[in-house]
């Protein structure tokens, strides 16, 4: 196996365990925030998204070991492109549908103008 050309530089038991422990801690923290009613409203949503994104990075680094292979990092380029599409898709859908919802409401054209200016 010394001559293995599986370029995915493999992790160690320690790095996997560390990733696993951090992931469990982040999951339990997110659960505790909701179950224990520690935060509320926008702050809670913000904290939950933050914890999920943190866990995404932990697993990308410790489990998928991105950027640990040989250069050039094609896998990273593909990931960045996919993330770009994901952000456009998700944020764009929410943005458009929210505007559509408002345009379906019974509003006079003046009220609509005022709403669009507010946006």
């Amino acid at each position, binding site marked *: *196996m*010394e*001559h*293995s*050309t*599986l*370029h*995915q530089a*493999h*992790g*160690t*038991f320690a790095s*996997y*365990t560390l*990733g*696993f422990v951090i*992931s*469990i801690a982040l*999951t339990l923290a*997110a*659960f505790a*925030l*909701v*179950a224990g009613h520690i935060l*509320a409203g926008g702050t*809670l*949503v913000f904290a*939950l*998204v933050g*914890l*999920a994104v943190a*866990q*995404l990075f932990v*697993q*990308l680094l410790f*489990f*998928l070991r991105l950027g640990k*292979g*040989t250069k050039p990092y*094609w*896998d990273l380029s*593909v*990931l960045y*492109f*996919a993330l770009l*599409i*994901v952000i456009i*898709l*998700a944020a764009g*859908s*929410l943005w458009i*549908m929210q505007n559509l919802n408002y345009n379906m409401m019974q509003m006079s054209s003046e009220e609509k103008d005022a709403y669009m200016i507010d946006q």
Partner: protein
Amino acid sequence: MTIDHPHDITPRVTLGFWIYLMSDCVLFASLFATYAVLHGNTYGGPSGRELFSLTFVLAETLILLTSSFTVGLAMLSAYKGRRNQVIIFLAITLVLGLTFIGLELNEFVKLVHDGNSWTRSAFLSSFFTLVGTHGLHVTLGSLWMMFLIAQTFFDGLTEVVLRRLLCLTLFWHFLDIVWIFIFTIVYLMGTI
């Protein structure tokens, strides 16, 4: 065993598989976006707050997370050429994966039985589509794992088996990452 001939295709295969995973990621993003748009449209039916049990979902999450860890350990054992260890870790991962699917099916059956199937509201349609698509991925991954356990057992850790194992590991880690977002966006935020 040595794999040192100059035309090793493993990096290309794993890159190709990675590109597939990222396209799958875009598929999930569209389902997430659909859910985000529709999650308030309950049509007078129950919302997530009334339907979801957080401790149940936490158990599912921890099971899938542990399986992501054990499939990584299987890959580590494969690099060290320890066939039996690979089979044991894959078997543990498979049991955890099947437990996860069992729990999810249990939740689905309960929802449908209580009259809250995908036909109840737009919210539930998008919920079943998103979570069901993830569950289908885990199911297919489990089938794949069964075949790979058999291949590892009969063929040993050949170059082909290692390559397949690497792809399956990527697939399984990816599914766990998708589940983190289902856990956060659908279940945690749904019960706020």
